[in-house]
């Protein structure tokens, strides 16, 4: 069983191990069989869509940019091109003057190279107006011109479908009134729609509970015929419905049994170990048609390792979901933000367990208490991603955000983030 999607793709040339895994599965005959694998993170094939089914209407804006290149879009504006992943239009019709960040600490905290991002957001000639809609004053919120205070999920109605491994629908009833002046994200949008004269078009006459009911009934009619109707579910305080899985589903079983009549969704209908489409891109050094090892742009094997000899990774931490819950005291107590260092690397630098340590490279400096551990490879340090950035007067991050150190350079094919590809040095402070 091969598995992909848990970090190795978020590296320089992260496309290569991902494609490499698929090729390995193909040449060893591990596609379309029990215990085999073909790609991805092991979703239940035929499972649910990732998010719910709120109707999107027709979006007249055709332009789209890769999420990870939003700073590039701000800097380049109407000069942004398909080389930077612009899709849907040849050029943007204007520079980006306003950002509305909803439920997102991603703008500053979770995006690479925080010091660079901060300079971009501080530059008034670029983004002139930043609106942040959130429940807490996050590191992103501190850059906002205007904050729209949102209520918690428990203070409004909602619905979720299971993602990843099964087919589920989960009702999230309102159990408390919104605190103070907060409103649900939906209510904030509806109020704005009112100002724009689009209230009825946006709401279709429904409030949060009304939409939840409509979507629940829609699930009932098209995916989960056995679930009770909305009013019964609410009255009886039910709420979670899982479609039982009776047998494992196997992707590409049909293709392996009869490839002629069940071609793959590739140009040739076959497994493409050599991809003519990638060859067309004519960038064999960074986008080879056959997956291969490419030395990363910051690597322990390159000359950069003389100055910055340690690889730094930003794993998910058990006390947080990305940057969510970093402000919860019980979770901070359970999982304090630390830099994890192998004893060998610490000994070389006269660092002892619990010392205050600075991790740094050309992009930034982070100061953190260290934890010496055997659980990490020598030559690698870990700073769990998601801690809220707190720069001091010298721009040294006292909050422990790994993105103070990461690079904004994107992966060549997917325009994805490569936040685990960074080299740093560490030293004891004070």
């Amino acid at each position, binding site marked *: 069983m091969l598995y992909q999607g848990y970090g190795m793709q978020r590296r320089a040339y992260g496309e290569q191990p991902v494609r490499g895994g698929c090729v390995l599965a193909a040449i060893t005959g591990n596609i379309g069989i029990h215990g085999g694998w073909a790609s991805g993170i092991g979703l239940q094939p035929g499972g649910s869509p990732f998010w719910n089914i709120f109707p999107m209407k027709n979006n007249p804006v055709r332009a789209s940019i890769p999420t990870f290149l939003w700073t590039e879009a701000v800097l380049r504006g109407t000069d942004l091109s398909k080389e930077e992943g612009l899709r849907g239009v040849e050029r943007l019709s204007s520079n980006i003057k306003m950002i509305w960040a909803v439920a997102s600490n991603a703008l500053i905290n979770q995006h690479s190279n925080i010091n660079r991002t901060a300079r971009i957001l501080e530059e008034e000639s670029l983004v002139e107006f930043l609106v942040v809609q959130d429940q807490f004053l996050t590191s992103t919120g501190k850059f906002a011109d205007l904050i729209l205070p949102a209520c918690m999920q428990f203070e409004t109605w909602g619905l979720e479908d299971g993602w990843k491994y099964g087919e589920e629908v989960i009702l999230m009833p309102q159990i408390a009134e919104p605190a103070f002046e907060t409103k649900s994200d939906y209510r904030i949008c509806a109020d704005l729609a009112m100002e724009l004269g689009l209230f009825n078009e946006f709401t279709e006459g429904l409030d949060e509970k009304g939409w939840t009911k409509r979507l629940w009934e829609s699930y009932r009619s098209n995916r989960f015929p056995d679930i009770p109707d909305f009013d019964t579910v609410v009255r009886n305080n039910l709420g979670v419905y899982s479609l039982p899985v009776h047998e494992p589903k196997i992707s590409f079983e049909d293709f392996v049994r009869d490839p002629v009549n069940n071609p793959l969704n590739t140009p040739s209908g076959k497994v493409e170990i050599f991809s003519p489409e990638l060859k067309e891109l004519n960038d064999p050094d960074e986008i080879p048609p056959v997956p291969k090892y490419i030395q990363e742009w910051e690597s322990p094997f390159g000359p950069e390792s003389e100055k910055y000899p340690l690889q730094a990774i930003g794993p998910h931490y*058990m006390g947080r979901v990305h940057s969510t819950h970093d402000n919860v*005291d*019980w979770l901070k*107590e359970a999982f304090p933000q630390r830099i994890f260092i192998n004893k060998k690397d610490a000994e070389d630098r006269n660092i002892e367990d619990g010392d205050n340590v600075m991790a740094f490279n050309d992009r930034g400096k982070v100061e953190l208490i260290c934890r010496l551990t*055997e659980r990490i*490879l020598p030559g690698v340090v870990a700073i769990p991603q998601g801690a809220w950035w707190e720069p001091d007067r010298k721009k040294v991050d006292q909050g422990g955000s790994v993105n103070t150190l990461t690079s904004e350079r994107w992966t060549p094919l997917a325009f994805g983030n490569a936040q685990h590809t960074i080299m740093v040095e560490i030293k004891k402070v004070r």
Partner: protein
Amino acid sequence: MAQFGFFIDTSACSGCKTCQVACKDKNNLEPGILWRRVYEISGGNWEKGSNGGWKASLSTYNLSVACNHCEEPGCVEACPTKALYKEEKRGLVLIDEDKCIGCRYCEWACPYGALQFDRDRGIMSKCDFCVDYLDVGSSPSCVASCPMRALDFGEISELTLKYGNMKHIYPMADPEITKPCLVIKPHPEAETARSNNARVANKEEVKQ
């Protein structure tokens, strides 16, 4: 007399601390008070092989410990006001808050760190096995919350039948001191923990 205890499967524990947080949630414990603690045990070495690659020989596992409601509890013996006592119904070690003077002798006497000083109230506090939940037929909060199903509870004789009679794992105190009422399924790496000089790696998290 009945005697209740906990079961801990250290081979299954992922160190997620859901038990610890569920306990704090149920009992509304301020940061700094941990009726259940998760110890990270870690030791061993990395050696560079002849091919240049690193090879690890490690002993790493997690150990979730609350109060072991010992048969011969050192805390009860140490308490000068008889605030700590062993109750009859389930053999639990409980605390009579009205009698506690906050002298913290019990804290010294417990080899498991179970006694936790509540600074705001000036008295000791500890795991009460969620006795109110037991009375209505529910599980203790920590056991019910464990996503790995690594915790269990019950009459100690039944736990022993179900899981064996191991009461010790490195680096816990010698069970002969207080006769703790718990059953442990040891993590396989516990065998090499002593020779690997394993230690509690997260002392600050368990307030040790």
